[in-house]
């Protein structure tokens, strides 16, 4: 910065971000970016293969040279397994959250637009989904079709769609009755414009909050399924998987469970904080 003395330097992007975002939001977005980077570069970051065993170093505690987060009962490096788990869990959680938001919102908007029998069918499906324990449905599907990553993401994508459908339908109907959507229809706009340009931005804040609620639930749901042996299959691993299997060694080797639990808590917390902040930012009326 040699010319700093001549002209007032334009503050760097970091400074500008810091001024606009609260400290916690900076932390949480930093954490999420770190997690995403870890997921993308998992292959490069991993010190060992996730299946590589070292029977002479079983259940070594955290901080052991060479095994920063310790090892499990087969002497597999926990850091490598954690990195791989983050990749798998993030793919499932992000993929499924986005899928269920898209699916639910689309159905909700369709119900609001066409009313009549379309609405009845969508709402009946939503009630059906809400009444059926999701775990049982997933167990049935996975038991029949076998577990694969694609199937798992698609299946999880059905988790919570009924919430988005109800929210989207209710908000879209009230928008049409309230005026602004009716006013745009009255201007001659096609339904696609009314829904994408007007109703969606107006209901996005509610949907984003709903997404931040679904995200941790999907991570937990996936852990539950993995724990039952129908989710991610060993030797592949996910955060829920690690916690599930670490349970057996809770008293003798708590570090197996500790690291993935901390990652789950921090990631879901960051998503919630970020979602909350994003909702406020997206609403011009409370800026």
């Amino acid at each position, binding site marked *: 910065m040699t010319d700093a003395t001549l002209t007032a330097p334009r503050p760097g992007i970091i400074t500008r971000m810091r001024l606009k975002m609260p400290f916690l939001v900076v932390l949480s977005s930093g954490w999420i970016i770190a997690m995403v980077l870890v997921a993308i570069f998992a292959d490069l970051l991993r010190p060992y293969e996730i299946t590589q065993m070292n029977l002479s170093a079983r259940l070594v505690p955290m901080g052991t040279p060479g095994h920063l987060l310790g090892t499990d009962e087969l002497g597999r490096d926990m850091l490598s397994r954690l990195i791989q788990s983050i990749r798998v869990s993030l793919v499932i959680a992000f993929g499924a959250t986005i899928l269920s938001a898209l699916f639910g919102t689309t159905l909700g908007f369709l119900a609001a637009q066409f009313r009549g029998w379309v609405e009845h069918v969508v709402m009946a499906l939503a009630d059906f989904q809400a009444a059926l324990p999701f775990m049982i449905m997933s167990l049935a599907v996975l038991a029949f079709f076998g577990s694969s990553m694609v199937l798992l993401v698609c299946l999880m994508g059905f988790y919570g769609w009924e919430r988005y459908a109800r929210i989207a339908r209710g908000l879209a109907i009230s928008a049409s009755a*309230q*005026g*602004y959507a009716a*006013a*745009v*229809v*009255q*201007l*001659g*706009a*096609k*339904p696609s*414009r009314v829904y994408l340009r*007007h109703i969606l*931005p*107006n209901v996005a804040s509610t949907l984003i909050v709903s997404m931040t609620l679904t995200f941790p639930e999907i991570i937990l749901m996936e852990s539950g399924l993995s724990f039952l042996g129908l989710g991610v299959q060993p030797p592949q691993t996910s955060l829920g998987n690690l916690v599930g299997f670490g349970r057996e060694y809770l008293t003798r080797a708590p570090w197996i469970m500790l690291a993935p639990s901390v990652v789950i808590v921090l990631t879901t917390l960051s998503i919630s904080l970020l979602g909350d902040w994003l909702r406020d930012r997206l*609403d*011009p*009326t409370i800026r």
Partner: protein
Amino acid sequence: MTAPLLQARGLVQEYATARSFFGKTSTVRAVDGIDLTVRQGEILGIVGESGSGKSTLGRMLLGLETPAGGEVLYQGAPMPAPRTDAWRKLRAQMQLIFQDPLAALDRRMTIAAQIAEPLEIHGIAKGAEAAERLAALMARVGLRRDQADRYPHELSGGQRQRVVIARALATNPGFLVCDEPVSALDVSIQAQVVNLLRDLQEQEGLTMVFISHDLKVVRNICDRVAVMYLGRVVEEAPSDLLFADPRHPYTRALVSSIPKPGQGLHGRIILQGEPPNPAARPAGCAFHPRCAFADRGCAARVPELQHDGRRQIACLKPDAAAATAA
């Protein structure tokens, strides 16, 4: 006499009311057989109590609702069904101005984007041309240039209504329906908006239907006035004639209700009985339970709208009413 821009013939609109648990649905006739002609370049006022079907009539004239009976002709052609392509295209020629401007505007769009939206929807102007038209529109309704990037909640009620008016004028429509455009505004702002509408009408030769329950505003702005009672037009006349010499007993009560300074309640006709309920329409003349001149005949026969000089009136005993007025 100028050519009719819009004609309504025998318009009827019915709504199903919420049914009780075991009961059957009952239908409410919000509009019950209305014939109306709107001539090119005039402002037609529609007045009546709430529940008299004014707004429903306005929405049907615009083709926003399909009438249960009768038809609307715009420039001689029947109104296309709502939400079809032909209907969407016709929106560029006819626009609605809403009662509550805050509800009619999208909270998340700047007013510039909203005013320019009709241009975009109908593919009228793009880029620099659209920006130019936007600036012209804003100037026409009296919005400052620096307000373009504001959001609706940052404006005052009068400014919001100007935004709604600017948006309605964006496509240069020939026909405007103003549905109680000033009743949500302060009295001081009302005058500004009414003057704005009148100026626009004079400059552009706009044709307007002005729906209101505020007789002062209607007298101020309208060329011709139709008075509605329970879904029917009871009297229609040029504005000056109607306010100077109302004939129908209901119109007379309405006109006498306009406050005059220093007169108190003297000379007012206070209507007795229940306010109108479209779900329980009285037999015969709908107004007869509240009418001072009604007799048994009024309860039996429905009066038709009949020409009487420059006015039309639907009353079985207009002479009795006129006699006491004199």
